[in-house]
């Protein structure tokens, strides 16, 4: 018998459309592993992952992303939020760039002041609640 699929969603106000590929990503994230995807034909890497390669439209497979140190490429402090995140505002959204050049968009959750472009970020994980989980950055 197949084990029961755990109900998981990404981020704070989640898209509820979860595919098997995305479910695999979420289950790894549940174990505090961030997965990138690698094209099985041409080897191109994607973060966040895609099931299909953007270059050759072949299938990709998930592989653990092991970089943990990023640099802040840009940021925004969201004061006036979309309705679904109103209670969370203000929050900081960052684009972090890893040494490989791969990038990730996530919140920075432990800032006491406005961030500075170029500052060092560290990849971290958080279980928001029972079903919601996320990757994030810490300074």
């Amino acid at each position, binding site marked *: 018998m197949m084990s029961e699929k755990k109900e998981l969603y990404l981020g704070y106000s989640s898209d509820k459309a979860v595919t098997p590929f995305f479910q695999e990503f979420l289950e790894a994230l549940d174990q505090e592993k961030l997965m990138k995807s690698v094209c099985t034909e041409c080897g191109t890497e994607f973060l966040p992952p895609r099931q299909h390669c953007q270059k050759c439209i072949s299938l990709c497979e998930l592989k653990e992303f092991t970089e943990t140190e990023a640099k802040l490429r840009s940021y925004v402090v969201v004061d006036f939020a979309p309705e679904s995140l109103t209670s969370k505002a203000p929050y900081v959204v960052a684009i972090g760039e890893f040494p490989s050049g791969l990038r990730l968009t996530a919140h920075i959750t432990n800032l006491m002041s406005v961030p500075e472009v170029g500052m060092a970020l560290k990849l971290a994980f958080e279980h928001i609640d029972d079903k919601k989980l*996320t990757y994030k950055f810490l300074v």
Partner: protein
Amino acid sequence: MARKVAVVAAGHSKFGKRYDATMRELCAEAYKPIYDAGVTQDKIDATVLSYAASQFTGQGAGSALMADYLGLQNIPHLRVESACTTGTASLRAAWGMVAAGLYDVMLVLGVEQMNRVSSAVATEYMSQAGDMRWEYPYGISFPAFYALMASRYMYEYDMPHEVLSRISVKSHHYGAQNPKAHLPREVTLEEANNAVPICRPLNLYDCSLITDGAAGVVIAAEDRVKEFTDQPMWITGIGAGASAMMIQDRESLTSIPGAKRAAKAAYDMAGVGPKDLDMVQVHDCFSIAELIAYEDLGLAEPGKGRELIENKEVYHDSRIPVNCDGGLKSKGHPLGATGLSMTYEILKQMRGEAENQSRQIDDVKIGLAHNVGQSGQFVNVFIFERGW
């Protein structure tokens, strides 16, 4: 060989919080001056009737409703959608049909009704134009995307926020002189620079308005133009561009890559360059967007756009007038109407009919409209030339 196509008439509703109207009445307000100019329903072969987001109204099949309300129910219509470029995308689609000979005369009309929901709900709907799987869960609102560009721009070029506020001051200066504007009042530099934060580094005065409104134009094939006007505005350049869906994947945050590509294509097609322009309408959904547009359109070198606003070179009586109707900031930004509102303004200026002559630009022969969708995923650049 494509036929030449001209804009022969245009109409524009009052922009604002229009609790006295819904999308159908707004459409009628924009079509009425066109009808009065002689383009009655029987003269129109086909239409493109568009709006960006059906969530705001709940109305499905909206182009059918719009056509019916305007007495065009038996004439072929379709809707084109591409976020905030919906207006110029509709014009681009119609241009293709007329240039190819499928139709001779087309009405192109764009509308948006955005104020029947709260600002937070409107912000929610617009955030759903980000990547639903990877961006939306992090609450990246429409201003947040542009704030990500602003943070990077201010860092790379060591620019203070005040430069952006100077753009808002100009927008409101001209909006105050435009009877169609949503928020027609002047603001001071101090007021603009110290306003309540929305998405830092952007504040309230860096952001365009959530507006209800409609605008429309009629285009005609060259051999039919004379039936409608002796003051046609030829469409001589059309460039379209696109950029990566996720903002993190853009090769630059200090420029909109698709806008540069669109501008080059439009200049090449028209055989003109930035120095030939007499007026420009840019997509200032945020103050930073106007600054970046100066550079993407070649009006200034990268990083030097600030000089245009600091030296007041973009005012109506100076070197290269930009958004002398108040722009999206003060005139307002009803998504689907915006690109056609720009087209309307260029026609009025060319004809010497700027609403409120205090902002009339002298002798406009060539005008450019720059219309950007979402955070740069869609861009249309149009070049128009005076035909008389």
